[in-house]
């Protein structure tokens, strides 16, 4: 049984001009424990709707969302589902409940009704996992955007969910903040075997995931591993840019230097070095 499963999910809502917007059209996919999935799509593709469907903040018009085989429509299961699936939202300022970092991180475990020592232990663990231990006693006001978002991640982490969804959690951060958050998410996925769904339109972030789901106008346009980047048409149709290094590599490939499909700066450098050396060797 998959951990999270969407079965022909449809969802629509009334938009600003009183017109019915169909956000999701017959979406089906599943996510296993420990997976690192990037969900990409441009604005209005239904990404955020999909995130909010996962933990029962909204329920599908038709179809089913199953978490560990339990439907999110059942009111009695909502609490258990939210223990298993945590969401980090876009704006860190709108996720803070208190004026002190550690109190905010404690909010989740407090809601779970854990004993005091356990809450303390989880807060300390969560803050050190995101590298924010030294700011435990300070007010979020003095923190940078990236630091605030790390606190928000710690707040979700302290609940110890099996799946963390980041709903454009890096959207309001500068490049440094984005890098910080991405590193932490990768580490959590690797060390804690926590499944991650990273919703983003930064393709460099998507390239870090093991699996990429492309959402286009409410339906899944593509779903696959990193090999998806070799078929740029999928992304272009969904209104997305390819990652910088993939685009660079494409151009090099076009002029006859075979560098394959590197995703990061290091991979790109290696591929170019190899291709150039190989070329020289032939001469």
């Amino acid at each position, binding site marked *: 049984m998959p951990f999270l499963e969407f079965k022909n999910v449809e969802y629509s809502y009334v938009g600003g001009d009183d017109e019915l917007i169909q956000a999701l059209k017959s979406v089906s996919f599943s996510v296993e424990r420990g997976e690192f999935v990037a969900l990409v799509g441009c604005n209005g593709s239904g990404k955020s709707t999909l995130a909010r469907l996962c933990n029962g903040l909204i329920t599908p018009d038709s179809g089913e969302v199953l978490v560990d085989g339990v439907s999110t429509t059942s009111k009695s299961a909502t609490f258990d589902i939210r223990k298993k699936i945590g969401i980090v939202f876009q704006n860190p300022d709108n996720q803070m409940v208190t004026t002190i970092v550690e109190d905010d991180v404690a909010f989740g475990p407090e809601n779970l009704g854990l004993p*005091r020592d356990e809450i303390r232990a989880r807060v300390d663990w969560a803050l050190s996992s995101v590298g924010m231990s030294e700011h435990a006693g300070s007010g979020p006001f003095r923190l940078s955007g990236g630091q605030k978002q790390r606190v928000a991640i710690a707040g979700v982490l302290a609940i110890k969910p099996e799946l963390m969804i980041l709903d454009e959690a890096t959207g309001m951060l500068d490049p440094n903040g984005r890098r910080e958050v991405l590193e932490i998410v990768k580490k959590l996925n690797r060390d804690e075997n926590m499944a991650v769904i990273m919703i983003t339109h930064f393709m460099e972030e998507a390239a870090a995931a093991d699996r990429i789901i492309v959402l286009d106008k409410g339906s899944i346009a593509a779903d696959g591993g990193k090999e998806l980047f070799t078929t740029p048409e999928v992304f272009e149709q969904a209104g997305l840019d390819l990652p910088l290094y993939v685009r660079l590599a494409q151009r090099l490939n076009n002029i006859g230097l075979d560098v394959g499909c590197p995703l990061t700066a290091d991979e790109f450098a290696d591929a170019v070095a190899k291709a150039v050396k190989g070329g020289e060797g032939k001469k």
Partner: protein
Amino acid sequence: MRDVSMGQYYPASSVVHRADPRFKLVILILYLVTVFFCDSFFSFGFMTFFVLVTIFLSRVPILKVLKSLRFVIVILLFTTLLMMIFYSDTSGAAPLAEWGIFHIYLNGIYSAIKLGWRLMLLVLMPTVLTLTSTPTELCDGLESLLSPLKLLHIPVHVFALIMSIALSLIPSLIEETDKIINAQRSRGAAFESRNPFKKIKAMIPVLIPLFVSSFRRADELADAMDSRCYRGAKGRTRMKKLKAKLSDFVALLFWCAITVCILFLNYNWCGWAFITALGI
């Protein structure tokens, strides 16, 4: 920009800062009631002495305390002056001076000074409280003190949470207001106009977007709280629990003793002669 959500908190390490906020609140209430029982100059002096001791123990510079009260002091002096010149003596004593409708009596001066002194005492201690405790501490203290009301089905937890969220949202709302004002100004809004009507009118296009964005924020926060398993006070535990220390009980007992002293000075139940000698 300074951290508004910290109120006028003056960070320092002192016994007053470390004291349990619940005890501080109880002592404050006890103190305020006691001040109303002060009647003679001696009892005012007595209270003032202990207020000064508290300020000294809190390690907040006395100038800092007075500075945060500067507007109150102006109003206070004005009230005292009015009291002095409009006092009407019924004991038949001759006025010390008079100009038209203004009369100055000796008793008038006494009453005016007592009024001013009493008001000063009434505002001093609350100021010391807010200088030595963070809003969060006060919020927790209040929640704990009001928790018996839960028996009457009053949602104390909800009120405390509302206060806490309000405090944490203040900085971002101020930031937002700044942004909106700058956006409107860059499109020619007349915030600098001297005409008060124009000024008020210019605020409307600031308040409306601020309202809209507050609602959006509230929505997002509600989603974030729901996602973090919030379901009201049901089954909720707390990481931090206020712990009363021995020193807190000692302080409370001490202030109780002061109250008793003031009551004795005021009512003189045992008819001690020295109290009569002290009292004007």
